[in-house]
């Protein structure tokens, strides 16, 4: 037996390995540098938001509501105030970091409501079919067609502008996309023959549907929820900006824009900084969503 090249010998040509779906997806995601960078940025942001009170204790950040009228309207680069101060002398950097708490928590936590409401409605509509499906879909169509912001405006105005109410209001309006997605997935699984076969064999189709629903729809659901985060962040910020959401002196990004808008000609940095924060955060989540979608797209598998 003459010696063949070592590499060729090592490879067992008769039994090549296969790559699992999740490993494949992670590998693909990793290759998307924009998505990975955005993920890092988001992780950093979340970390800062979580440890902000600690940072304040250690003097790295200041109390975002501490006024110091004497040193107001200091531009970025001032002593003690890297990003400057606002009209009442509050430190802008601290406001930005503490403000991220609101944006991030609303953006991410709203998705929990979306998942629960949208998921159950979609599941119910898809599984039961018939008039239940019809009714639920009509309802969904109404909500889909009506501009969300207006609904949210009314709901928040009705319930009062607290964080919890805003959270609920946005959640109540954003579940429609997910409901449709889930319903579609359930329907497509229902139509597959093995559900018929299972029913014929006597087992309940629910278990089969759930068993197959999870792996198939996990991808699109994750992507939808990821894209929902910047949308929710946006809605919350708009509410603040219009004056209908959280009010000063709460340090959210939308409120910062609201406060600084009056003096936008004279002191544009007060408005630009929170705008940049908002934009970058939303961009980052969008890139992550894009990356996830490409990574989980079954058509692009090896």
């Amino acid at each position, binding site marked *: 037996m003459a010696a063949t090249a070592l590499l060729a010998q090592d490879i067992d040509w008769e039994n090549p390995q296969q790559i699992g779906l999740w490993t494949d997806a992670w590998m693909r995601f990793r290759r998307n540098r924009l998505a990975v960078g955005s993920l890092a940025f988001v992780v950093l942001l979340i970390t800062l938001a979580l440890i902000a009170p600690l940072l304040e204790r250690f003097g790295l950040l200041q109390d975002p509501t501490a006024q110091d009228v004497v040193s107001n309207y200091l531009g970025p680069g001032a002593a003690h105030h890297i990003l400057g101060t606002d009209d009442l002398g509050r430190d802008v950097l601290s406001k930005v970091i503490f403000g991220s708490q609101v944006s991030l928590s609303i953006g991410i936590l709203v998705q929990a409501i979306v998942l629960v409401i949208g998921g159950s409605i979609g599941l119910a509509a898809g599984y039961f079919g018939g008039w239940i499906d019809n009714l639920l879909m009509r309802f969904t169509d109404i909500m*889909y067609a009506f501009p969300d912001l207006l609904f949210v405006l*009314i709901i928040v105005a009705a319930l009062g502008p607290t964080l919890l109410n805003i959270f609920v209001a946005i959640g109540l309006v954003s579940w429609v996309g997910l409901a449709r997605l889930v319903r579609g997935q359930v329907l497509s699984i229902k139509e597959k023959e093995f559900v018929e076969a299972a029913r014929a064999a006597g087992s309940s189709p629910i278990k089969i549907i759930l068993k197959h629903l999870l792996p198939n729809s996990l991808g699109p659901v994750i992507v939808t929820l990821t894209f929902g985060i*910047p949308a929710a962040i946006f809605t919350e910020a708009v509410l603040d900006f219009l004056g209908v959401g959280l009010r000063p002196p709460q340090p959210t990004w939308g409120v910062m*824009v609201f406060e600084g808008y009056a003096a936008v000609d004279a002191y544009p940095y007060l408005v*630009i900084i929170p705008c940049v924060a908002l934009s970058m955060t*939303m961009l980052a989540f969008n890139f992550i969503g894009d990356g996830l979608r490409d990574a989980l797209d079954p058509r692009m598998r090896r």
Partner: protein
Amino acid sequence: MALVRGAPLRGALIPLRKRSGRGWTLGIYVARRLLWMIPVLLFVILITFFLAHIAPGSPWDREGRQLSDATIRNLNSKYGLDQPIWTQFGLYLWNVLHFDFGTSYQHPGQSVNQLILESWPYTVKLGAASFLVIITVGISLGVVAALRQNSFVDYAAVALATVGASVPNFVVGIVLIVLLSNFLYKFTAGNFFLPTGGYPQDLLHMIMPVATLSFLPIAFLARLTRSATLDSLRQDYVRTAWAKGLRERLVVTRHVLKNSLIPVVTIAGPLFAALITGSVIVETVFQVPGIGRSYVQSIEARDYPMILGTTVLYAGLVALLNLVVDVAYVFIDPRVRLE
């Protein structure tokens, strides 16, 4: 009734009398949709009515005026606010059927209809101009990017679209204001949007609000068009077209675009919704005296008649526009059946 796509018609033996058959079903479909609008509108009114009335605070303590209790009681009884809620609702519905939406609390003496009619033109101008800009720029950008994939145009378009889809539109507006007001005062003479008489100034004043309002939808439309066109390009029938020896121009127009523009039509519905939402924000940023801005003000002031009137208007508008889109879709895609 719903539109059903796909599911090719079997039974090729049964000839379809296309002309009369489809026209008849179309009329029925439109009629049914219009009828459906009524319960939907009722539902919307109901929800809005109760939400508005749940809201803490009354219409009278907004202005910072200190009104005596007696005055408040008088005002309440004058506007029927002391009656039980269901009575109020019933009365309101009755009036609505006569197209009477009541008078505004903020501007006593002026009917809601009047006020809406006053602010309506501004919003329509803004919306219509934006719509045109969105359609032309968005679609062209998307198509060009797809046809010249991986070229500079493509990357630029995708980058623009991604950024546009992520940056909140009030941010765009503010950035524009900050940039332009410091450098080009021509665009920013005081109140941006009020027509100063004479066409050239009007158009100049419209540029910034329209640009702000269009930014996000253009981004979405360009992305959608690009991906729809790319999808279309990958399809087998495009390969068949090439295999027949067709010129590039024909392949692109007759085969690629004819198919890729269909899903683009589906975005028209959400597009209108986005225009409405966006106009609320843009009107606030640029101080345009349109319906959007008055809506926010009405909510703040608990001006129930205005809130309700505007909401009904919006709901009706959205429903109508969606109907138009669905009907258009039937004509564009021959595979669609009316169920």
